[in-house]
């Protein structure tokens, strides 16, 4: 980081906070603090929804994902438009008309208090787990890439988020999100343009796309079906539809964004904007990763991008022959890539076909060398299940991007972390106060009391997130697991809301038992089954609905026969 990068980074962060606080003036009632007085325009909600969903690790990981595995991750978003249409048609008008503060408040109106409380507790467990990791995951990557202590990055991001979220409430969160999304869009466009400009002069943009495709990095749609394959068109269309239905229909961190809308139409437009914009945005981010892959066809990348681990294993006797083989494989791939691009230009299909198979086998040698280096890290005391996918993009940014742009991309990472984290903290505080404190601890107090309780709850969850992030290192490989654990809870929540909206005869007790049964089955599948995590959402939802319907049917027939 050079002085110009620091100026860009600090200016971006200060402007985000200042603008958010400026727009949040007058948040002096509970309704204004938690729901912005239901006055937000659709575009602000739309960008806030997008920003809350896109954490920093999305940008760091997604680009690395397409570098190593291609663009098929985009399929995980195919269910989003379907889910948004269902939510706009069913959930949004009901939440608006019942004037609820939280999604779970509606469950008491529809079912009973225990169902509301169970759903609230499930949300607090699941979102509370991820709140610390939202800050920790990018902090550890930034620390390793930039050489800053983890504590510094965690505290920098945590303190900034807590300050504007506690003071300004949801208005500050939403308007900061808008600005953060603008910085994210700008940073991504500049990053892509810079990668393309940095390609060798003999390689055109068309050549770059062709070479990425020949290496299998442009596989945006894969039609082969497998239960344990995380990303294909089938899991994308079915599994992710359920995931997004749960996320946008039952997760308060998202529901709260569109409850701030000044009308049903404004809330719907904000969700439909995401239905249209999210898939191209993910495609764009993945495409950046594919172009970084092409860049490294001509400039030799390190065998591992996580330089702390690389330095550690470099002196070992097993490393030298591996490095020599890697150097040879890289040079071979570079020459074949140039020959392939030339054959493609000349329209020589026989040479093209020959070079493609040689190019892929050279790529496989490189992948093998990287795999062996990762295993060496593990076998010599490094992290179990070591993967350096998350380090690829930031390593590229800090090594090759020009001064100023580096600061902007780091600002993108900070902005994404802060937007995701502020949304989480704000929604955790809302559920704590509205669904638990106001219902069980202090009923019927004045508005000012609940406003102060909301501020304290926000501060509590902010401090909790930062503290939990501080323990992140001890959690080690649990980071990946906790992301998957989030989907262990969504299926049950979704099942509960499906019952609420689609089955008017089902009552609270049947739903409550159904949710418990759903959790039991999901956890059993997680521990004893072998299927991709997107399917947990489908299974959980189906079990909750089926159990509640069976109980309802059994209860009805018992009542009928007793009459």
């Amino acid at each position, binding site marked *: 980081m050079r002085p110009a990068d620091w100026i860009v980074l600090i200016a971006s962060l200060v402007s985000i906070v200042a603008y958010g606080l400026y727009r949040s003036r007058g948040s002096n009632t509970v309704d204004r603090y938690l729901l912005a007085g239901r006055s937000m325009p659709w575009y602000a909600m739309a960008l806030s929804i997008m920003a809350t969903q896109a954490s920093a690790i999305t940008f760091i990981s997604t680009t690395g994902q397409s570098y190593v595995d291609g663009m098929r991750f*985009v399929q995980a978003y*195919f269910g989003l*438009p*379907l889910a*948004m*249409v269902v939510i*706009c*048609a069913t959930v949004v*008008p*009901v939440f*608006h*008309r*019942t*004037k609820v503060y939280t999604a779970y408040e*509606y469950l008491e*109106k*529809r079912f009973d208090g225990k169902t509301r409380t169970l759903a609230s507790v499930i949300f607090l467990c699941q979102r509370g787990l991820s709140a610390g990791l939202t800050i920790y995951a990018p902090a550890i990557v930034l620390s390793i890439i930039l050489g800053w202590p983890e504590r510094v990055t965690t505290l920098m991001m945590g303190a900034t988020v807590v300050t504007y979220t506690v003071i300004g409430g949801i208005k500050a969160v939403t308007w900061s999100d808008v600005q953060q999304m603008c910085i994210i869009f700008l940073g991504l466009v500049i990053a892509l343009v810079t990668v393309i400009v940095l390609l060798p002069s003999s390689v055109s943009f068309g050549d770059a*796309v*062709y070479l*990425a*495709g*020949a290496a*299998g990095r*442009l*596989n*945006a*749609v*894969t039609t082969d079906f497998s239960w344990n394959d995380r990303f294909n*068109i089938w899991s994308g269309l079915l599994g992710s539809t359920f995931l997004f239905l749960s996320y946008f229909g039952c997760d308060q961190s998202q529901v709260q964004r569109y409850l701030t809308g000044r*009308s*049903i*139409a404004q809330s*719907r*437009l904000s969700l*439909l904007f995401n*239905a*249209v914009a999210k*898939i*191209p945005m993910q*495609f764009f981010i993945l495409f950046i990763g594919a172009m970084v892959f092409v860049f490294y066809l001509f400039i030799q990348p390190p065998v591992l991008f996580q330089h702390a681990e690389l330095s550690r294993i470099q002196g070992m006797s097993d490393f030298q022959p591996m490095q020599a083989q890697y150097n040879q494989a890289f040079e071979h791939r570079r020459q074949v890539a140039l020959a392939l691009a030339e054959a493609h230009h000349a329209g020589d299909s026989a040479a093209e076909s020959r070079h493609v198979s040689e190019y892929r086998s050279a790529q496989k040698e490189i992948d093998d060398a990287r795999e062996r280096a990762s295993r060496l890290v593990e076998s010599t005391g490094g992290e179990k299940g070591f993967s350096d996918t998350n380090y690829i993009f930031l390593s590229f940014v800090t090594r090759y991007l020009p001064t100023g742009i580096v600061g902007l991309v780091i600002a993108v990472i900070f902005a994404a972390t802060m937007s995701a984290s502020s949304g989480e903290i704000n929604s955790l505080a809302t559920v704590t106060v509205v669904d638990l404190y106001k219902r069980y601890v202090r009923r019927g107090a004045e508005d000012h009391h609940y406003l102060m309780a909301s501020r304290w709850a926000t501060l509590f969850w902010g401090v909790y997130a930062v503290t939990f992030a501080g323990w992140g290192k001890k959690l080690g490989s649990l980071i990946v697991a906790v992301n998957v654990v989030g989907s262990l809870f969504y299926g049950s929540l979704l099942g509960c809301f499906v019952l609420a909206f689609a089955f*008017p005869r089902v009552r609270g007790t049947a739903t409550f038992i159904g949710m418990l049964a759903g959790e039991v089955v999901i956890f059993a599948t997680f521990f004893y089954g072998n299927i991709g995590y997107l399917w947990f959402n489908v299974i959980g939802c189906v079990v909750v609905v089926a159990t509640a319907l069976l109980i309802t049917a059994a209860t009805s027939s018992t009542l009928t026969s007793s009459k």
Partner: protein
Amino acid sequence: MPDLREVPDEPPPFLGTWRRVYVGILIYLVVIITVFYLFTRAYR
């Protein structure tokens, strides 16, 4: 079912009805998947 207070449901700013907007979104999804599929095949 809970009481639903009266909140006016405004029409969308384009296409006239929400039903048409939803159909438009679904058509968009089909088009984007088709484009990605063709993209994948073109550069495979």
